């Protein structure tokens, strides 16, 4: 549990972050979204004290971060940034081992941890570990950056535009992978992005920041359906809103008894996936199958469209 109280940063009397208060549950993903200059990066950097707050407190599991030495605090918090920041003169293995080495882990434990992390991030340890960062692709560098941030099993992970340098296809894959890893490890993640789609895709809760203030701090569905201000509404984007909303809803609640033509869709998909399939294949309804592949009914276009219009 991370409690942030009245966090403020001023530079030469001008507030960049103003009086931010929020509580972050352990094991959840919180995404800070905002335009450039909104103060979101400064906010993130105050959590691990790369920037010292002008006022306010950050508490991790009840401990005020100001009571720790800054470098010791940072060793407990994973940190991944946009241009990955890998040390170019160290191999991948040495890069990932950075914090465990600082913490004085024994050699064998570090080696085992490096292997485990590379496998977790779908990188072949024998091939990748001895390489230098410049010998990797952009996507591989980004994954090594995440592995390095996770290395010492940190209390939480701070990520500043972690996918910003990736092209769209690799970026989507990296987002899926991060979500899968987070669900598997139960990590607490605080992620900064300017991309609302990324925020909706990854966040359990989203904080929309503008001019140093948090405009709204809520689950993605609420951000979409009940934007708290004009700024939030403009970030959500009116024309994309229904599709973003559909992407948050699972198929399962809309399944009704009956049959339909053509290939089935799994219950794990979102309504947006179902709509896309209906449009592209010209069908009024899709057969639905559960995780084991057993038929469990159908979903119709009408039900889907009315679900996409949220109550207000």
């Amino acid at each position: 549990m991370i409690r942030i109280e009245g966090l403020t940063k001023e530079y030469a009397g001008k507030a960049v972050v103003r009086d931010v208060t929020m509580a972050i549950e352990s094991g959840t993903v919180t995404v800070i979204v905002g335009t450039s200059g909104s103060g979101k990066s400064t906010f993130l950097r105050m959590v691990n004290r790369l920037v010292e707050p002008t006022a306010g407190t950050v508490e991790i599991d009840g401990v005020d971060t100001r009571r720790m030495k800054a470098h010791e605090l940072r060793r407990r918090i994973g940190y991944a940034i946009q241009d990955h920041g890998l040390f170019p003169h160290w191999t991948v293995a040495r890069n990932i081992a950075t914090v465990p080495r600082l913490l004085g882990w024994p050699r064998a434990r570090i080696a085992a941890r490096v292997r485990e992390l590379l496998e977790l991030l779908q990188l072949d340890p024998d091939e990748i570990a001895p390489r230098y960062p410049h010998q990797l692709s952009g996507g591989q560098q980004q994954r090594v950056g995440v592995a390095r941030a996770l290395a010492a099993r940190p209390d939480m992970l701070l990520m500043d535009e972690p996918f910003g340098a990736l092209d769209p296809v690799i970026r989507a894959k990296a987002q899926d992978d991060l979500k899968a890893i987070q669900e598997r490890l139960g990590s607490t993640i605080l992620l900064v992005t300017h991309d609302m789609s990324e925020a909706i895709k990854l966040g359990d809760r989203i904080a929309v920041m503008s001019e140093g203030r948090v405009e709204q701090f809520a689950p993605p569905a609420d951000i979409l359906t009940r934007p708290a201000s004009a700024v939030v509404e403009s970030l959500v984007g009116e024309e994309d809103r229904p599709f973003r909303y559909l992407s948050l809803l699972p198929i399962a609640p809309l399944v009704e008894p009956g049959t339909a033509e053509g290939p089935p869709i799994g219950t794990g998909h979102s309504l947006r996936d179902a709509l896309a399939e209906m449009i592209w294949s010209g069908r009024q309804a899709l057969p639905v199958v559960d995780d084991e592949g057993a038929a469990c009914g159908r979903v119709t276009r009408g039900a889907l469209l009315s679900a996409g219009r949220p109550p207000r």
Partner: protein
Amino acid sequence: MGRSPDKLGVPMGGLLAVALALPLASYRANRIAPAEPRGLFEALPLSWALAVVGLALAAVAVALAARRPALRLAVSALMLLALLMAIGEAGRTLSAGGAQYARVAPGVGFWLAAFALAILVTDAIVRLRPGPLGRLAALAAALAALGLILVSGQWDGLSVLAEYRGRAAAFWREGGHHLQLAFGSLAVAVAAGVPLGIAIHRARRFKAPVLNGLSLLQTIPSIALFGILIVPLGWVAANVPGAAALGVQGIGMAPAFVALFIYSLLPMVANTAAGLAAVPAGVTEAAAGMGLTRRQQLASVELPLALPVILTGIRIVLVQNIGLATIAALIGGGGFGTFVFQGLGQTATDLILLGALPTVALAFVAAVVLDATVDLLPGARR
């Protein structure tokens, strides 16, 4: 074949051909007598002269037409070696008949040919694109060849070596002084310059004033700086207990050492600061974010990444100091410059060469070794 001749081969091959027609050596009946030129066929036995002409023509042909760098290297290096052997042979031949005071020195033909061949050799090495170890091996081979020629006595007839024989003990002593001056001032400059470079990298507002101040020091002519230092160092020697016992005095090695140190500061400080500034922002950000302390950030990330640029600064300083240390002799600081200024005073060119040639050789060796070291660093990628 319709292929255009080699771009560098035309001037250098031409120079080599011209050099053949110019005097290979100069002969003087005694040390200060006027020099008389001696052509290739006057200076060498017929068999030697013909061999040199034949090889030189082959070298010109290769320089003009050959494409393969290995062939160009082999032929021009062979010709350079033959030239070095031939000048020794000329020394022996010319002084054989004459009086024991006869002096034989390399003539303008020799110097021109040696220059053209040295350019052709280095150009061929560059075209071969050797790695750092290859360049060190080439340097070692060249030094070994030079050493063998010296030890074999092939050059004993040359006047430079006659000057050396007269003052062998002084030569090595002054050589030692020269190295002490050049390397000692470098060591102190590294010890002071790297921390200062780190300091101005961290406290940016001091960067411009410090670098401008050091640039200003750099513009003081060396002789003037020696003069300026006489007063304060003389005062220190007279008033600080123990300073005189350490060898600090207004003239001699102390002011020379201090002057070289002052000239070394700008390259050391500027390169350290530039190397640190070139570390990518994401890397320093990540190092801090991972929880490295300031000291750890500096020691394990920033300095290793800045090291190639810092070493380039050390290379600049060392080559500069080896050259500048020559002037130290003017104020009694010793070094190879001693022979240069003695030679100037006596209008004895051979004595000047005795001081100048080892200085050039030292600077060259230092440059090659440090360049190779920069390339051998683990971070040397790109």
